[in-house]
């Protein structure tokens, strides 16, 4: 039988505001439990929510970036259910008027439609201690602003899902609204999956999978659940509509029977928050303030700088890296050289030091000057790499560094010729080996010449001189 997998995604993204959605508690990750909470986010009697303006701005920008129609009035609703990590026993969310609707995100060969995207507050964290058989509740996370992005069931493969998540991640990072780190929980993804016979127009019964903590887990989960459902159906069974937990260790999805159907959330408009009408000018300013998004930036770099799709893709993969690249080129570096050095040495150096692109200590000016030293022949590439490593952390000017350490390439023709002569004289065997056809001997002679010059010779020149002399 020919089966087709149909997937829709619900993604929760933590917004990187300094404070929570409805109170001024800090959102800093990793604080000691219950040190970042107040009467509002712990649902004390008499406490009231007040909307965080910055979170709203972030939400609006995200809606634009995902090509949504942005709601002109911002309204919230209460989603009511009982659970210990939800101190008010309702979550302030948006059902009736999500901030953005009817959007889309391009994932290369396909466009994924976004049904809606809305703002809501996060719940606290339950920490189970098996030893004492008690569960603690940490409210630090409670009230952190989230956007939830719900797609149409447009995905057909796990690869498409991952492509979407990657595109979503880099788009939101570009906006600066979230760092989208799945491992830290700032990007969470629930997968709604069903299967049907190819050609069928109706959707099969779907399950919802939670607890996916990496893109790889998403791939595995999609593959597993798709296979599981097909097996069930092929053996004559029925799919139960339920929530399943992905177990990374066992690499399977497990039914969460028991976290049952409190499905009637009794949504009603949040009376403690006044509907906010967005003035068209305000919205226009936010829209104009949007940075160039990854896809557009990649296309522009390919067009304007003649970069390959691969190179442009690598560079725009992180906004800070793309910014660094463009600033370097703006200072006069050649696009190709800058691209090569950034994709090569810069990324290597970052990785070695376990730094993010945002934390680059090297400045575009420093790289541009270094590249200029190479381009003008004053230092060779080997020297350049050494200089790069030396100045990466310190912020020293490469020209000064080269000058102080006397690393300038020797280009003096007389000195070069003299040295070449000396090397040839001192290595007669190699000369004869080369003349006898041993190519390796040439390399040896180049090496010897370079050594004699302390490595500071222009290799192309040395090469040329040797070839001339040896005939």
């Amino acid at each position, binding site marked *: 039988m020919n089966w087709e997998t149909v997937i829709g995604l619900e993604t929760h993204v933590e917004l990187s505001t300094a404070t929570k959605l409805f109170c001024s508690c800090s959102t800093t990750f990793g604080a000691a439990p219950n040190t970042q909470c107040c*009467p509002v986010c*712990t*649902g*004390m*009697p*008499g*406490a*009231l*929510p*007040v*909307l965080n303006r910055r979170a709203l701005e972030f939400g609006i920008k995200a809606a634009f970036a995902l090509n949504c129609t942005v709601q002109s009035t911002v309204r919230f609703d*209460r989603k*009511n259910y*009982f659970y*210990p990590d939800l*101190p*008010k*026993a*309702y979550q302030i969310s948006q059902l009736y008027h999500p901030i953005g609707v009817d959007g889309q995100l391009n994932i290369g060969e396909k466009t994924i439609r976004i049904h809606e995207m809305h703002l809501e507050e996060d719940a606290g964290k339950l920490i189970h201690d098996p030893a004492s058989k008690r569960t603690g*509740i940490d409210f630090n996370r409670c009230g952190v602003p989230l956007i939830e992005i719900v797609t149409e069931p447009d995905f057909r493969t796990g690869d498409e899902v991952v492509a979407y998540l990657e595109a979503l991640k880099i788009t939101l990072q570009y906006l600066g609204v979230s760092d989208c780190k799945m491992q830290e929980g700032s990007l969470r993804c629930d997968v709604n999956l069903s299967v049907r016979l190819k050609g069928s127009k109706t959707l099969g019964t779907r399950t919802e999978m939670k607890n996916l903590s990496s893109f790889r887990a998403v791939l595995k989960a999609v593959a597993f659940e798709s296979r599981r459902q097909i097996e069930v159906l092929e053996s004559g069974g029925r799919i139960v509509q339920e929530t399943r937990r992905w177990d990374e260790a066992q690499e399977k999805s497990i039914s969460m029977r028991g976290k049952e159907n409190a499905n*009637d959330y*009794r*949504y*009603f408009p949040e*009376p*403690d*928050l*006044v509907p906010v009408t967005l003035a068209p000018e305000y919205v226009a300013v936010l829209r104009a303030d949007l940075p160039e998004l990854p896809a557009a930036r990649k296309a522009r770099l390919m067009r304007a700088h003649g970069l390959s799709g691969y190179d442009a893709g690598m560079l725009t993969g992180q906004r800070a890296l793309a910014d660094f690249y463009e600033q370097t080129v703006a200072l006069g570096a050649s696009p190709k050289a800058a691209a090569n050095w950034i994709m090569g040495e810069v990324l290597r150096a970052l990785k070695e030091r376990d730094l993010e692109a945002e934390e680059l200590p090297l400045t575009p000016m420093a790289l541009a000057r270094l590249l200029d030293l190479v381009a003008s022949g004053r230092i060779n590439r080997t020297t350049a790499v050494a200089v790069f490593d030396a100045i990466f952390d310190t912020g020293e000017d490469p020209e000064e560094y080269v000058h102080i350490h006397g690393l300038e390439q020797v280009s003096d023709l007389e000195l070069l010729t003299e040295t070449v002569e000396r090397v040839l004289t001192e290595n007669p065997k190699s000369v004869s080996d080369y003349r006898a056809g041993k190519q390796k001997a040439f390399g040896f002679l180049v090496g010897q010449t370079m050594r004699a010059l302390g490595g500071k010779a222009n290799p192309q020149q040395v090469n040329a001189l040797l070839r001339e002399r040896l005939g």
Partner: protein
Amino acid sequence: MNLSDCSAVALGRLIRAGELSAAEAARWALDRIARHQKENNAFLTVTQELAMEQALAFDAAKDKPSHPLAGVPAAVKDNICTKGIRTCAASRILGDFVPPYDAHVMERFRESGGVLLGKLNMDEFAMGSTSETSCAGPVRNPWNLEHVPGGSSGGAAAAVAAGECFYALGSDTGGSIRQPAAWCGVTGIKPTYGAVSRYGLIAYASSLDQIGPIARTAEDCAAVLDLIVGRDARDATSVNAEGNFLRNLTDDIRGLRIGVPAECFGDGLDDTVRERVLAVAGVLRDRGAAVEACALPELKYGVPAYYILACAEASANLARYDGVRYGRRPEGVRSLDELYCASRSEGFGPEAQRRILLGTFVLSAGFYDDYYQRALRARTVIRKAYARLFRRYDLLLTPVAPTTAPGLGESLSDPLKMYLGDLYTVPVNLAGLPAVSVPCGFDNGGLPIGAQLVGPKHGEQTLLNAAHAYQRDTDFHTRRPKEAAL
């Protein structure tokens, strides 16, 4: 010194002039409380030491707050959070909850040099019209201890009536300031929705609740209102409201146009109440106001719309009381469900449970449209009706309640009947308008009757002026319950 007939403003003047110390005033009030608390149960918590501390500190301070009520001892309803002082909204479920923060109005109170005598008894979570549902026993009406004082701010009204405090802060969601004020022969005002911050008010119905003063006179109410109005960044529904009510208070109401909705004087209204309330029109007319009949047919939607919306919001507002983070936690539970069920079944009284269930029902799938949505539409109709009337009139005159205070124990067995008694007060909350209740007479049994004046949004000055003018020419507000217990 006998302060029985001293208004809050007058006392403030005496203290400012140095003729009386705050400590003496506090001692006077605490003595009254000691005498009357057993018989009327107006207080849930008496903060004797704190009150004396605050009064003495006030007296000793070189730089005293200049507010007209500085140094005047007062009390607040127990649904207003007071930092460090037990606040339980008369509910077992909050147990010995001590808020770690002050309500906005308490901050204002402290800044103005107020002296806190204690927390006042009320209906549990402000749900009720008789103050009989408190976990600490019912409040009794100082005019007749076998009768209820009204609710839900029954303790506040009773305490003011019995001279146990010089003013009180109550709250009003469907009449909970106005009705007990009427049944206890004192003056109370519910401000425009949003005029007073709800931050720190234990929520019953978020779109209806407002904190307001209960005192002996309209003038006192004006002074207290000045103290508590104004935008608070912690309450998104609070608005900018100017607090100059005392300074701008006048008894000149010439030309004021007063409408008397016929529907508020129909069947079901006690004859004596009708007569006394209509007599208010005469007094105001004598002072130059123009009074005429008008129509408010939409009145009949008030009670059903109110109970649906208030209970719906309450069902969500009270969902946080689960015994997990604060309040009373039941013993011996073995699962999360058991914990929730035990906390809430044991912790909430029957009226609170009734309203939570009702509210949950009207919000549930399949009923939301028929009940909640429909109630919202009725609310809009009511709002528009008042807006229409306020294009022609400056104020409306209505009764506060269809009867005077019933006897203890007579109301709770018929909740629906009790709800219907709110018909004159709830539409005002639905429309978010201000309204005042003034004493306007007594029934044959000597129980007080109140009249309600309703104003347009932010019409508190007009309301207070009219009430003040009325109180110039009448003395109902000066009568005191007999000191029977003495």
